[in-house]
C-alpha cells in the first residue's frame, strides 16, 4: 500500500518546532508515506483567528484547502495531513462548517476562488496508527527503546471535540500509548494525558501555564516517568522551553526531557541526529539516553 498526502507543516515547524517537522518527515519517509508539501501554504490563523472571527479563520484555512484541491486534480492524494493539532483542528472545523452552503459561499467570496474541500483531513499520528497500522512500525524498529519509561501526553485538542476530530477516544486515547509501546518503551498510565497545558496563554498569562503545565510535569514525575512524549508543538514548548520558568514559579526542580513521538521513532529506527534533532530540546535528553544505553550495556 502506498500512501500519498498533501502535507501542511504549520508555522511552528519553521521555528519553534523545527525538530517535530524534520523528524515527522523522516518518519513518514521511512514508513513509505509520501508527503507532498502544500505549495505556498499560509498560516491557518491558529487560536487568534478563531478567537477573533470564524469567517476570517475559515478563509485563512480555505486558501490552503483550495491549493490542496488543485493538487488533487493533478495527482492521486489520500488526504491532507499535518503534525500540529491546532492546525488540524482549524482545518477540520473549517471543512465541517463549509458544509453549510451559505457559509461556503461567503468563504469562497473572501478567498477569491471556488472550494471543494472534500479531501479527508488527519493528523500524521492518525495516519500512522490507523491508515498504515501500528504493525508497520515494528519493521522500522532497530534499536528498541528498552527501559525508557515514558508518559504519553496528547494535549487537549488532538482528540477533541470528538464530533470534529473523529480520532481515538476523547477521554482516554491510546494511539500514542500503542505507538510508543511498539517502539519498545515502557508506557506508564497517565491520567493527565488529555489535560490542557495552558495552550497559547504562555506569552500573556504565565500564571496559567505555571499551574497547568506544572501539573503535567508533577504528575509525570509522580508516575515515575523518565520523559514526557508529545504530539503537539504548543504542549512541547510549554513543557520544555518553559520548564525553567515553571520551576521558578512553582519552586519545583523538574529536569524532564519532553520528546516529540516522531523523535523517539527516529531514535528507535536508528536514524541520526539530522533526523531526530535531539539537540533542539531545551531540557537535554543526553544524560537520560546515556544512562539507558549504559544500563542495557549497549554503550553510550
Amino acid at each position, binding site marked *: 500500500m502506498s500512501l500519498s498526502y498533501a502535507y501542511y507543516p504549520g508555522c511552528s515547524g519553521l521555528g519553534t518546532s523545527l525538530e517535530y517537522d524534520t523528524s515527522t518527515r523522516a518518519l513518514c519517509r521511512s514508513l513509505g508515506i509520501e508527503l507532498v508539501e502544500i505549495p505556498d501554504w*499560509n498560516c491557518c490563523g491558529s487560536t*487568534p483567528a478563531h*478567537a477573533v472571527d470564524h469567517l476570517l479563520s475559515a478563509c485563512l484555512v480555505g486558501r490552503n484547502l483550495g491549493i490542496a484541491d488543485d493538487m488533487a486534480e493533478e495527482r492521486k492524494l489520500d488526504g491532507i495531513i499535518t503534525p500540529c493539532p491546532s492546525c488540524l483542528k482549524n482545518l477540520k472545523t473549517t471543512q465541517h462548517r463549509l458544509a453549510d452552503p451559505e457559509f461556503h459561499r461567503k468563504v469562497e467570496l473572501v478567498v477569491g476562488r471556488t472550494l471543494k474541500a472534500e479531501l479527508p483531513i488527519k493528523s500524521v499520528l492518525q495516519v500512522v496508527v490507523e491508515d498504515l497500522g501500528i504493525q508497520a512500525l515494528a519493521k522500522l524498529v532497530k534499536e528498541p527503546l528498552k527501559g525508557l519509561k515514558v508518559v504519553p501526553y496528547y494535549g487537549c485538542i488532538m482528540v477533541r471535540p470528538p464530533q470534529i476530530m473523529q480520532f481515538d477516544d476523547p477521554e482516554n486515547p491510546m494511539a500514542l500509548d500503542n505507538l510508543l509501546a511498539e517502539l519498545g518503551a515502557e508506557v506508564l498510565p497517565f491520567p493527565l494525558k488529555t489535560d490542557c497545558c495552558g495552550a497559547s496563554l504562555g506569552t500573556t498569562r504565565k500564571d496559567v501555564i505555571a499551574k497547568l503545565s506544572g501539573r503535567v510535569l508533577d504528575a509525570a514525575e509522580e508516575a515515575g516517568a523518565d520523559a514526557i512524549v508529545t504530539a503537539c508543538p504548543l504542549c512541547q514548548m510549554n513543557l520544555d522551553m518553559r520548564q525553567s520558568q515553571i520551576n521558578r514559579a512553582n519552586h519545583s526542580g523538574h529536569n524532564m526531557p519532553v520528546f516529540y513521538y516522531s523523535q523517539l521513532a527516529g531514535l528507535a529506527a536508528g536514524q541520526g541526529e539530522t533526523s531526530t534533532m535531539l539537540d533542539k530540546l531545551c531540557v537535554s535528553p543526553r544524560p537520560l539516553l546515556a544512562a539507558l544505553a549504559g544500563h542495557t550495556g549497549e554503550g553510550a
Partner: protein
Amino acid sequence: MPSSTKTFDSDFIAEVQRESEQDLALCYQCGNCTAGCPVSFAYDYPVNQIMRLVQAGKKQEALSSHAIWLCASCETCTTRCPNDIDVARIMDVLRHMARRENIVSEKAVSAFWKAFLESVEKHGRVFELGLMANYVGKTGKMFTDMDLAPMALRKGKLGLKAHDIKKLAEIRGIFDRYREQKQ
C-alpha cells in the same frame, strides 16, 4: 437606552444563538463544563455561570468577564456537555462580540492575538520574532519571555528571518475582502 444597560437583553441572547448556532435553552446548569475546565481557577465567572449569564440576557456582565479571554479553547466543555452544546464555540462568539463592542478585560491577550494576525497579514505565515516585537510594542510591557530568548536563539528556535509566502497579494486580498464583508 443602550442595550448594555438592560438587565434582560433578549437581542443579545438571540445574537449569541445565531452566531454560535447553539440552543442556549438546552443548558440545564449541570456544571459538567466547569468541572472539566482547566482555567476555572483563573476565571471570574466559571464557564457554567457564563452560560447562565447569557441565558439571562446579561450582556454587559458576560462580555466584560475575564473568563472569555482566558479560555484556552481546550474543548473539554464541548466534549463533556451532556446536551451537546458547543460551549467552546459560545466562548469564541462572546470574544468576537466583546471585541466588536470594545470591551476587552484582558488587554494583553487581545494584544497578542492582534499582533499574531498582523504577522499573518504581513508575511502569510507567523514570524515569531517579529510577532514578539510587535506584542511588546503594543502592550508597552517589558517582554516577560526575555529570559527564554537566549536559549531560543541558540537552539535556532526563533528564526531571525520571516518566511514570507510567494503570493502575499492573495493573503492581503483575503484580509481586505474579509474587512469589507464585515462592514
